[in-house]
């Protein structure tokens, strides 16, 4: 049996192949496409290196360990590690050196700046939720005060650390450098505050470290750092005109 002469078999086959090969987006991707109003941006979001399953499992495990372990009575360990975990995640949401198809993506209509912003916001939100869950799990109902501060207090430092890692990543075009800078800055802040407030290793260590996270005097500096870093990211991701 032969096909009629006016039938374009190539076209027929392409239509069949399109149906057979068609990929049905998952619920998450469909929801992201609706929210972002862009199927391309939704797909780019789901290919974020630090939103992939191995990374999420790793972050969850680290925060779970932070929830189980305790430093003194005020249990600030989750608050201590959450900003660092989120900061590293944000740095690895950035493209060059991490996303293999970044150069190709930069030649596409969906803005690379928008992809970066969407990925950063998503990684931050996921890490904030994981951290809050871990923090809530450590709540000591016998504690008299400060539980809310301990649960939410680290969100502001986390914002500052994430902004710093993103700014350094885009400025140096390296996720490793960005992650290193963020973690190092956070360590310096924690160690400095812990040292100023008490003697490490004593029973009060937990309280002193908790103060390092939740000290209201640091809120403004954290916000200032986050704002400056956001400006750096905006500047570093602008379309370049001069020589590099």
């Amino acid at each position: 049996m032969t096909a009629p002469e006016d039938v374009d078999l190539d076209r027929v086959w392409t239509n069949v192949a399109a149906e057979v090969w068609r990929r049905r987006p998952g619920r998450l991707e469909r929801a992201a496409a609706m929210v972002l109003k862009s199927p391309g941006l939704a797909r780019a979001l789901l290919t974020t290196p630090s939103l992939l399953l191995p990374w999420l499992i790793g972050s969850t495990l680290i925060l779970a360990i932070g929830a189980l372990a305790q430093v003194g009575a005020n249990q600030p360990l989750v608050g201590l590690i959450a900003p660092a975990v989120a900061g590293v995640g944000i740095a690895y949401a950035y493209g060059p050196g991490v996303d293999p198809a970044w150069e190709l993506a930069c030649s596409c209509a969906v803005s690379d700046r928008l992809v970066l912003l969407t990925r950063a916001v998503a990684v931050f939100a996921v890490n904030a939720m994981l951290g809050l869950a871990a923090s809530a799990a450590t709540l000591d109902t016998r504690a008299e005060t400060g539980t809310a501060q301990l649960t939410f207090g680290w969100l502001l430092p986390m914002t500052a650390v994430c902004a710093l890692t993103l700014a350094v990543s885009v400025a140096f075009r390296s996720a490793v450098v960005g992650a290193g800078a963020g973690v190092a800055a956070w360590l310096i802040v924690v160690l400095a505050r812990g040292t100023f407030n008490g003697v490490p290793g004593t029973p009060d260590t937990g309280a002193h470290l908790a103060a390092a996270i939740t000290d209201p005097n640091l809120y403004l500096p954290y916000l200032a750092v986050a704002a400056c870093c956001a400006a750096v990211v905006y500047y570093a991701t602008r379309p370049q005109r001069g020589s590099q």
Partner: protein
Amino acid sequence: MNIELSDITRRFGRNVAVDGVSLDVGAGVLGLLGPNGAGKTSLLRMLATILPPSSGQLTLLGRDPRQPADRREIRRRLGYLPQNLGYYPSFTVVEFVEYFALLKEMPPHLVPKAVAAAVEKVDLGPRAKAKLRTLSGGMLRRVGIAQAIVNEPELLLFDEPTAGLDPEQRVAFRTLIRDLGQTATVVVSTHLVEDVGAACSEVALMSNGKVVFRGTPEELTARGEAGQGVGDAPLERGYSAILSAARSAS
């Protein structure tokens, strides 16, 4: 003209990668030849709107890529295959091509057919559902070509497209770009002069960031016959004659 370059320069610190290049290119296939470090890839990256020029005027598809709205429109109508194609090992061929169709903002309802057509054009139909990590270098190159052509671009930029392809695939690729060049502007950067001879309607030869020759493959061949070029094929002799002349002039 789909590409209009006027005195385009690109510097990296003190190094001048592209030095005052002016070119007007319409529909057809332009072969970009030149030795390593001649500035071909930098020029191609500027045409792909990834790298902005340090100075000079660049107009693509009648638009100014410095303007965000124009740049977005250019990118919708652009296909680009970089020299080093990065890919996601866990993606299948179809997923990868579809990903870039979506990033190029193709209407979603057109994507499945466009992906199928692009995958068929590069003869990867039997491996459409294969993970990229299982493919050979030549097959990955063809995946890269498929993502470049999926949106039926008006401006196509290929950087070393035939690297890793076997002779049969190279012949098929030349046929493909000749077809594409009927309606679109295709720029092919390559080291392989035989690709240029077989597929390109025009040739531009770069040396030290400058375009030192522009003409047809036949004109390039004639330069070899008239000059002091070395090489096994007439085109190679033309290539080396022009390069020698450019080097002695500089």
